C-alpha cells in the first residue's frame, strides 16, 4: 500500500461522512432539485475525461476520452441548468 492510496481513502471516508451530514434534513420539497444538483456535481468526472482526451495516450485513449468529455459535459451543463430552472420556480408568496 503506498501512502498516496491511504491518503485518498482517508479523503473518501471523510467526504462520505460530510455528505451524510450535509444532506440530512433536506425538506422533501427540494428532493428533485437536490438530486439533479448532486447529479451535476457527479459530472466532475469531466476532469478525468479532459485529461484522457488531451493527453498523448494513443488513439483509443483520445477517442474514449473525447466521448467521455462529451457525456460529462452534457451531464454538467444540462444538470446545472435544469436544476436552476427548477429552483427558479420555487417561490414563496
Amino acid at each position, binding site marked *: 500500500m503506498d501512502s498516496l*492510496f491511504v491518503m485518498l481513502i482517508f479523503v473518501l471516508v471523510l467526504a462520505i461522512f*460530510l455528505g*451524510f451530514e450535509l444532506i440530512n434534513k433536506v425538506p*422533501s420539497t427540494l428532493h428533485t432539485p437536490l438530486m439533479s444538483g*448532486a*447529479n451535476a456535481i*457527479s459530472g466532475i468526472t469531466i476532469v478525468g475525461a479532459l485529461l484522457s482526451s488531451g493527453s498523448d495516450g494513443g488513439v483509443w485513449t483520445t477517442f474514449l476520452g473525447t466521448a467521455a468529455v462529451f457525456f460529462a459535459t*452534457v451531464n454538467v451543463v444540462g444538470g446545472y441548468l435544469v436544476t436552476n430552472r427548477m429552483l427558479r420556480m420555487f417561490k414563496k408568496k
Partner: protein
Amino acid sequence: MDIFQSEIFANMSYIVASMLFIFGLKQLGSPETAQRGNLISASGMFLAVLVTLINSQIISYEWLAAGLILGVIVGASAASLVKMTSMPELVALFNGFGGIASLLVGSAEYLGASSLGLISLTAIFLTLIIGGVTFSGSLVAYGKLSEILPGRQITFLGQRIVLIAFFLLSLVLGAQLIFGFELFQVWNPIYSFSFLILLALIIGLLITLPIGGADMPVIIALLNSYSGLAASAAGFVINNNVLIVAGALVGASGLILTNIMCKAMNRSLANVVFGSIGSASSGVRSDEDVGEVKPINVSDAYLILEAANSVLVVPGYGMAVSQAQHAVRELGELLEDNGCEVNYAIHPVAGRMPGHMNVLLAEANVSYDQLQEPEDVNPVMDTVDVCIVIGANDVVNPDAKDNEGSPIYGMPIIEADRSKTVFILKRSMAAGFAGIDNPLFGKENSRMLFGDAKESISSLVAEFKS
C-alpha cells in the same frame, strides 16, 4: 505561466472547487438559498474544468474542444427546451451520462496507460461496473419515466438467479483483470475488460427493468448515488482528490435519499430491488369488500368546498398524468379568496421520483410553504374540512395503519380518512399501483368524484367563477 501549470496550483484549485461543492450542497438544503447554492456549486465545477484545461498533461486541444462544445450545445438545449413536466426523465438521462463518462474515463486509462498497479486496476474495475450499471439503469429509468418503456414491472423466470450469476461472473472477470492470471490458455485480460463492460450494462438492465412505477423514486435515488460512486472510483483511477470528494458527496446524498424513500414505504432496499410487491399482494383482501362507494357530482362537491374553512390537497401520480397542477392551483386560489385555508400534503414517494409532486406544484406557482409533509398534516387532520385526493391511492390507504395482513402495512401514510370529508378524484375504481383495495373509498366520509382529474378540477373552478 509556470506557476499556473504547476501541480500545486492545480491541487489548490481543486481544494477550492471541493469547498464550493460543499457550500453549494449545503445551501441546496433550504428553499431560500437553494438557487444560490446551485450557482456556487456550478462555479466550483467551472473552476475545476478551467484548471484542468491549462494542465501541462494536455498537449492537444482539438478533440477535447470538439467534445466540450458538442456537450455544451446538447446539454444546454436539452435543459432549456424540455417541458417542465418531462423533468424527471431528463434528470435520469443526465445521470446515466455521468455514469457512462466515468466508465469511459476508466476505459481510456486502461487502454492508454503502459503499466497499471493493483490499486489502479481495482479502481478501473469499479468504474466499469458502477459506471455501466448507472448508465444502462438510468436509460431504463428514462424509458419508463418517458413512457417509451411500459411502466410496469418487466420480469422473467429466474431473473434473480441470472442477476446473481452475472454478478459473480463479473467478480471473476474483475479478479482476472486486476491480477492478470491465466484464466484459460487464450484468455487475455482485454477480453475480461470488454466482457466486464457488457456485463455491467446487462446488470443495470436486470436491476431496473423489474422495478414498477411506484418504486421508481427509490431506484432513481439509488442510481443517483451510483453516478457519484462511479466518479469517486474514477478519482482513484487518475489519483485525483476533487473527483473523490465530489463523487463521495453525491454518493452519500443519493444514499440518504434512497433511505428516505425506503422508509417512506416501510420497505428495505433489498425488498425494493429483489421483491415485487405486486405479485406478493394479490388477493390479500379478497374476502373483504371496501364497502359501498358513494359518487358525488361537481355541483355537490362545489357546495361542500364553498362552505369549507380548511382544505387539504393530496396529489399523487394521477395528477401528473392528467397534468392537473395548474387547475389545482387555480382552485386553491379561489378557495383562499373564499376565506379557506389551503394546504398540500405530499407523501415522499408520491409520483415517480423524489420530490416529483413538489416540482409540478412549484411549476404551477404554488407557494412552497404550502407544500407540507405527512408528519406536519397528520396531527391536525381532524380539523381539515375537506381532503381532496387527486390521483393518489396507496399513500392514503388506511390499511397501512390498521390491516396487519396488508402488504403495505406499516407504511407511513397521509391519514386523509380522518378529515371530515374526503373527495377522491379517480378515473375509475381500478386498484392502485400496488394492486390492493383501498378501504378509504368505502368510508362513511368519502365521496368519489369520477373522471379525469384535470376536467373535474376545471369544472369545480368554473362553478366557483359562475
